[in-house]
């Protein structure tokens, strides 16, 4: 700790942190551009000038850049002195000399860091009368708009895009004061993190093109805290709405998960909510009905059948799944997942809960200095994690910096010092991943071999020679590699094992478990070493659903069978996705009393007698559990006006109310009236949920008697927006289920992080305002990062897993994860659909040669009776005798990814 004096007042700050960070951390204002809390300082914009005095006797002082000066004990600093505020005023004046006069037509306006800094630096009158510089713009794809005139050459964009996120196609070009930030030519930005440029760029050079389609200013957008539904990481987001439409999604800072950045899927995949394809009415036997009528029919149907099978979903919230399970009874509950996936998730839970493992957040992941990734293409299955892994490989450079006594935040110096030196990252995947380029070791092998490799690493960690059947499966070279990987894991300061469900292999998850056990044994002396592990799971609430599985839970096929005799409720679940087509068809032909809740049409809903439209995640509240076991709540962003679209949990309570006479287990549910009741029900349902109340404050929470407003305090057009319909204003919708209100009135400050989606503070209109909400810069949110870790401290035991040799097959089809795939999140997003790759089957050269297949040939891959036709892509990284096919939703009669990996046959389709 260092004691420093700022403008005559004494403060305590961290010794060695840069003064800009220290000053902002104290809650004071100091303008800046080029420094970024996650990317450190480069000292290029000169806006953060302060006066630094050496000691008591120094009366003159020096003007220094705050972001480049480490805090030292006894320092005296002038922040508001005339000389430095003049300096900053002149500095911004020069910066603004060429800035265009286009704020009114700039999408950044109203949330622009440049506007804020200009005002903060007290620059009000333009004196420069010369000609202004202009630049041509570029087409940067469907997501990002480019208006180069607005650039102030702070270099944040390239520092994020290239240095931080590893992008290739954005650079600073041209020379001297002509510097141009863009691509070598027009074209879509390739990086899957490109959307962050919108928030990273302090000006309006890069703006959100999807918002521009129907633009509104930040002050006009209604928001609520939400959780991304794109993958299992549960990044915190802030969807924004006006006039019943979601207009954009931005990052919502979470100190342990996404920090300042999210991926492009999280940011741009929201059109499915606004889509015309959304189901909006209730149907009974294809007849449009009112909600109440449909409800009556449902109750009658279940009453007649006497009992009901419930199909849950990984995409539905904890509340929905749990209520469904309680409604139908655990013996009639099915997770809606294929049996194999259920087993994998159970094993993941087992390793998380019972092995000597430590669950780690993305933030903690960034501190790991040796990472083994087994079977996951993180860029596709957990993009934000891939970004964290990239940062983790920089730990070596920080160590080098520490040795040479360069502060870690001296970004340019640290990067120059380290050059390409990186901490070890071992990427063991089926085929090439974008992270391979920073991996110290890349291994491309079939899932069976990856499993064997994992067990070999575990054996080596325990100093054993691996079993003969493992050695047999592994090629000779991999056995050696396993030894060196084991050695690295053993000596690393903080090793980490990343696994997951993408390859649909239980054995691979067990291999991760075995490594964790072996590593814990190898490194425990005296104290128990808990191996950090992280598993990437298929969907947003996979882990939550796994927590509900018990011995009674019906297997999918069993449940569909039983469903044909009884009534069946399908909760946002498209069962077709998970079964061989013929099996699904046959089973569904006999289900006569299906009841579906779905947002969009799907094949399962088509087969149901009663259809309810489901609310999307922005139209209801709910809780999801991410891959780390963190339960996080999302809230209604706007009130759904359509009376047929009700919250998922309310639908189930309504059914329970109707059916309580004939279904005994429905009685306790019928007594629940509001979301708080449901939360308490969840809390009391199992010990693992005992801390459920801490997920987020309940609906009675108030600050000085006030609710928390969803609308910014300067929300405009309140008396006019609906005036064309009715000039007398309607009462704002009420929200009795959460502490949030649908107006601009309410608590202006002190909002708990779990309830706050608006990053705004007086004078700080852009998202840079987040520094006012953190306990320290880049740290936790003040009041604690939202969410509750359900799987906390435990002792752990030596779990042992055994290797079973996979059956060998001539040719194996494995599933390939894709970020922009063909599921509704991407396909219905007008922007992302343009960025989606076409679906291809990837084969290695040797395999292709053997089968006589050329690049681009249309091939037919058959697994059992199901098949799929795809163009072939010959990729050197794919191992022999393997074909890798996309795992996204398959339409009509196509092979379901749930069946993979499986032996297959390939025939060339005659063209």
């Amino acid at each position, binding site marked *: 700790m260092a004691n420093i004096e700022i403008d005559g007042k004494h403060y305590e700050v961290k010794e060695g942190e840069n003064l800009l960070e220290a000053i902002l951390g104290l809650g004071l204002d100091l303008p800046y551009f080029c420094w970024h809390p996650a990317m450190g300082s480069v000292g290029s914009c000169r806006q953060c000038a302060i006066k630094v005095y050496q000691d008591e006797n120094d009366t003159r002082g020096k003007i220094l850049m705050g972001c480049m000066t480490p805090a030292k004990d006894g320092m005296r600093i002038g922040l508001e002195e005339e000389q430095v505020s003049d300096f900053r005023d002149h500095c911004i004046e020069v910066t603004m000399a060429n800035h*265009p*006069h*286009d*704020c*009114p*037509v700039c999408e950044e*306006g*109203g949330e622009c860091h440049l506007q804020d800094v200009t005002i903060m630096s007290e620059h009000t009158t333009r004196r420069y*009368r*010369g*000609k*202004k*510089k*202009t*630049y*041509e*713009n570029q087409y940067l794809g469907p997501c990002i708009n480019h*208006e180069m*005139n607005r650039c102030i050459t702070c270099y944040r964009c390239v520092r994020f895009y290239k240095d931080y996120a590893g992008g290739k196609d954005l650079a600073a*070009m*041209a*020379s*001297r004061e*002509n510097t*141009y930030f863009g691509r070598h030519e027009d074209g879509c930005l390739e990086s899957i993190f490109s959307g962050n440029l919108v928030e990273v760029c302090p000006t309006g050079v890069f703006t959100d093109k999807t918002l*521009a389609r*129907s*633009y*509104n*200013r930040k*002050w*006009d957008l209604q928001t609520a805290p939400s959780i991304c539904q794109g993958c299992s990481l549960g990044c915190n987001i802030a969807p924004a709405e006006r*006039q019943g439409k979601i207009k954009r999604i931005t990052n919502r800072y979470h100190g342990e998960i996404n920090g300042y950045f999210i991926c492009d899927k999280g940011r741009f995949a929201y059109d499915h909510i606004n889509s015309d394809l959304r189901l909006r009415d209730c149907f009974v036997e294809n007849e449009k009905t009112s909600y109440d009528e449909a409800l009556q029919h449902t109750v009658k149907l279940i009453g007649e059948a006497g009992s009901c099978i419930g199909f849950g979903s990984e995409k539905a919230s904890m509340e929905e799944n749990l209520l469904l399970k309680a409604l139908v009874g655990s013996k009639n509950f099915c997770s809606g997942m294929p049996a194999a996936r259920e087993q994998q998730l159970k094993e993941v839970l087992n390793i998380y809960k019972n092995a000597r493992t430590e669950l780690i957040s993305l933030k903690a992941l960034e501190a790991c200095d040796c990472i083994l990734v087994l079977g996951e293409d993180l860029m596709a299955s957990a993009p934000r994690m891939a970004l964290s892994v990239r940062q983790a490989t920089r730990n070596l450079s920080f160590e080098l910096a520490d040795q040479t006594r360069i502060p870690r935040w001296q970004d340019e110096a640290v990067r120059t010092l380290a050059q390409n030196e990186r901490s070890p990252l071992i990427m063991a995947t089926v085929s090439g991943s974008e992270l391979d380029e920073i991996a110290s070791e890349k291994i491309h092998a079939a899932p069976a071999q990856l499993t064997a490799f994992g067990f070999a690493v575990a054996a080596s960690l325990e100093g054993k020679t691996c079993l003969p059947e493992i050695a047999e499966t592994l090629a000779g070279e991999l056995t050696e590699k396993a030894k060196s990987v084991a050695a690295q894991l053993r000596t690393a300061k903080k090793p980490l094992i990343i696994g997951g469900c993408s390859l649909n292999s239980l054995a691979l998850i067990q291999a991760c478990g075995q490594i964790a056990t072996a590593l814990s044994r190898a490194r425990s002396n005296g104290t128990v070493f808990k191996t950090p592990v992280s598993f990437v799971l298929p969907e947003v609430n996979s882990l939550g659903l796994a927590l509900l599985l018990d011995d009674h839970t019906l297997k999918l096929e069993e449940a569909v069978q039983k469903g044909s005799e009884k009534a069946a409720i399908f909760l946002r679940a498209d069962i077709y996705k998970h079964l061989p087509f013929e099996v699904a068809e046959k089973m569904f032909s006999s289900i006569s009393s299906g009841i579906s809740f779905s947002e969009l049409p799907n094949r399962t809903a088509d087969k149901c007698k009663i259809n309810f439209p489901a609310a999307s995640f922005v139209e209801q509240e709910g809780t999801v559990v991410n891959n780390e076991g963190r339960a996080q709540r999302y809230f209604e962003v706007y009130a759904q006006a359509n009376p047929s679209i009700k919250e998922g949990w309310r639908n189930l309570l309504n059914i329970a109310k109707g059916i309580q006479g004939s279904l005994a287990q429905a009685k306790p549910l019928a007594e629940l009236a509001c979301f708080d009741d449901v939360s308490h029900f969840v809390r009391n349902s199992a010990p693992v949920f005992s801390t459920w109340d801490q997920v987020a404050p309940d609906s009675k929470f108030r600050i000085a008697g006030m609710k928390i407003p969803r609308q910014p305090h*300067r*929300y*405009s*057009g*309140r*008396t*006019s*927006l609906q*005036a*064309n319909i*009715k*000039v*007398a204003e309607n009462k704002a919708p009420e929200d009795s289920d959460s502490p949030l209100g649908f107006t601009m009135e309410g608590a202006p400050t002190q909002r708990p992080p779990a309830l706050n989606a608006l990053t705004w503070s007086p004078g700080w209109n852009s998202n840079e305002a987040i520094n006012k909400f953190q306990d320290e810069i880049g740290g936790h949110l003040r009041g604690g990062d939202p969410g509750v870790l359900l799987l906390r401290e435990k002792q752990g035991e030596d779990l042992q897993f055994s290797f079973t040799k996979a059956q060998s097959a001539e040719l194996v089809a494995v599933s390939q994860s894709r970020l922009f795939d063909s599921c509704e999140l991407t396909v219905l997003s007008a922007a992302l659909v343009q960025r989606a790759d076409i679906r291809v089957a990837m084969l290695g050269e040797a395999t292709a040669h053997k089968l006589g297949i050329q690049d681009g040939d249309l091939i037919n891959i058959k697994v059992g009776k199901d098949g799929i036709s795809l163009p072939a892509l010959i990729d050197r990284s794919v191992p022999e005798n393997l074909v890798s096919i996309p795992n996204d939703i398959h339409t009509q009669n196509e092979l379901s990814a749930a069946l993979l990996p499986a032996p297959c046959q390939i025939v060339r389709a005659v063209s």
Partner: protein
Amino acid sequence: MRILYLIYDYIVSNVKSVWDVFSHTFTKADTVEYPDEMPYLAPRFRGRIVLTRDPDGKERCVACNLCAVSCPTDCISLQKAEDETGRWYPEFFRINFSRCVYCGLCEEACPTYSIQLTPDFEMAEYNRQNMVYEKEHLLINGTGKYPNYSFYNVSGKAVSGRKKGEGVNEAPPVDVKSLLP
């Protein structure tokens, strides 16, 4: 002293007031016989709001929303749209005059001189719903009080008929390929 003050207060001032009223009987009236006669209203009078056009006849409003956010009664709403050349314009523009207090803050906030208050106050309606004006009721065919200003001439943004560097006081676009000093 106090006595004198009371005498003034209760007697003299009352007599003076009566005299003042009486003497006004012989002066010229300031009021006019409205509606038979129209009073003079200065151009800066704050009455019915209009949306004006650029000197070249194009819609001036760029849908920046500054008027809406500055309006103390929140009675302006609009939605931004963009034509193929990048020019912003309001898809709809609505003022609920039954809420407007004619404060003129919208006019002050407008960076394009589009929204202007005019010397017309005859807006009474029997039906309040008719006080809601849409863009078609607001947009006039002229420049209003500010004849020469055109925002896009000075904005730096390329829109139809004006490429980068062709605006007022703009240098031609930077040649990024040149390395010359």
